């Protein structure tokens, strides 16, 4: 059973998607470790270390995603999590921006998969299978 850490980063309290992600991934056979809303980068990293996770799925809905995710990959590497897959999704930037540009920005920051508004957790299931086996 693969383990994934999920949660909502920063000062973000959007809880609905997080609860659904928890349910859908559990139903699909993952061991879900949910750090919940209002979680810091450290909360995600600590949970991933403790549970030996295969992937970290960050949600950011409220617009500050760009600031909140800065140097996250670097910190993961520092913590010895270089092989852990990093996903991010929700409404990860402020406003309606060009999807391709946003994706590139987050890929450059070290995320493996970047999801745009309107992409639901169900859309990530095949990717998770591909990436985690």
């Amino acid at each position, binding site marked *: 059973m693969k383990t994934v850490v999920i949660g909502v980063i920063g000062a973000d*309290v959007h809880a*609905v998607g997080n609860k659904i992600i928890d349910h859908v991934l559990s139903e699909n056979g993952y061991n879900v470790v949910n750090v919940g*809303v*209002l979680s810091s980068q450290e909360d995600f990293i600590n949970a991933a270390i403790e549970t030996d996770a295969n992937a970290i799925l960050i949600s950011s809905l409220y617009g500050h995603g760009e600031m909140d995710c800065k140097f996250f990959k670097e910190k993961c590497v520092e913590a010895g999590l270089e092989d852990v897959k990093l996903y991010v999704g929700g409404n990860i930037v402020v*406003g309606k921006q060009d999807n391709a540009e946003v994706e590139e920005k987050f890929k450059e920051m070290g995320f493996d998969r970047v999801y745009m508004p309107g992409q639901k957790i169900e859309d990530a299931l095949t990717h998770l299978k591909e990436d985690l086996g």
Partner: protein
Amino acid sequence: MIQNKKIPLEDFLNTRKEVLNQWETGSHPDLKLENAVKKLKNIPNHKNFSYVLKKAKSEGRTLIQPRAGVALIDKHIELLQFLEKEGHADFLPATIDSYTRQNRYQNAEDGIKESQRQNRSLLNGFPAVNHGVDGCEKVFNAINVPLQARHGTPDARLLTEIIHASGWTSNEGGGISYNIPYAKNISLEDTIEYWQYCDRLVGYYQEQGIELNREPFGPLTGTLVPPSISNTVAIVEALLAATQGVKNITVGYGQGGNLVQDVAALRALEEQTNSYLKQFGFSDVFVTTVFHQWMGGFPSDENEATSLIGYASTVATLGNATKMITKTTHESFGIPTKEANAQGLRASKYLTNLLKDQVLSDSKELTNEITQIKREVDILMHAIVRVGKGDLAQGIINAFKSGLIDVPFAPSEMTAGKIMPARDLDGKIRVFEFGDIAFDESIKEFHRNKLKRRAKKQKRELSIQMVIDDIYAVANGNLVGQKGEEKKHDN
């Protein structure tokens, strides 16, 4: 132990010193109460929330207000002026950014700097505390309609001080409604105390002859909240505010989706807020209602979004709400541009104006629904008063602790999170998992029957999957979720 008692002036003034010390902008001279009072007394009627609301109420009109907030003062002014001119907004807001909401003023400062550097807003709102009285007053002076802070701040004491001292005549929030949907592990004891302070400040101004408006945040999590639950919270917050001396209160409700249930909720909310205020000894509080256009996930297609905005406006107007908070075609993507925001306002205003001469007339369906909501609210209020042993503040704290009242899909650990709502066959929000909520057996039976009928018609189980389908449904163009909603979102 916190109690629902008016804070003695001396205690209030003592706490006030600490509050004004929380960030450097707390030292502004206009935060001397006598200065603030002078300033507020000079505000003309057309920029005074309480006045404009009273006028609208007497005319039976539904006025409109957008959400809007960006990091920098000049940009925020530009935004508000645009919404006033192009959107014909009747009220303007500063939606406060999320760092400020969590009192992370240093993060907000970084956000302001970064926004200046990149020349675009990296904050999701207006950091009023960092901008201080000078910045906030500059905004107020740049517009011609009343201005309100809209946020989601558990501890908004400093924010509240600053905005009122800047001439902003309304503040959204409350000790419950700005905790449960907006926090994770801040206690209700704390947030109720913080908001008693905010209300006490308004009560202070009231004593000086200045009527400011207060607005509990009605929609809570905006996600399938049964009307009786959000109405109960609104009523409790109105009572808490009135206790501190607030005399002008706008209770809110977020669109659920079924026309009759929504109009019933609005009518029940207004009637019961008034009657509970009287019951608790407050006979001179002026009550209005605010309807929030659909607060859940929005459709991404702009025409569909405008259509949903139009439907919401129809419901608000037929339900005779005094104010409506508008959404935009960008809702499902991100903070709207000023153009998108003004467009949402125009679409909304068109219908609030077109339909101003109509109300939804009484039908059996409507009066039944009003009766149902009122009965549930009465039972919840009764339970709250009971477990408070006579004190409302203790009552609501204990009621949440024991799950007698419960809010679905909330981030806060202060609510049990056991209640599970779903829609019945015509889209009314009902409950199928009650947790420990204080409903009696006949109410539960009513809800269960409604939902059993749906499960039967849709040939499926009453389950969490049904709830997820309901959450996804409106964005897909359905009210009652269909099997497999998650697959339909790419239309």
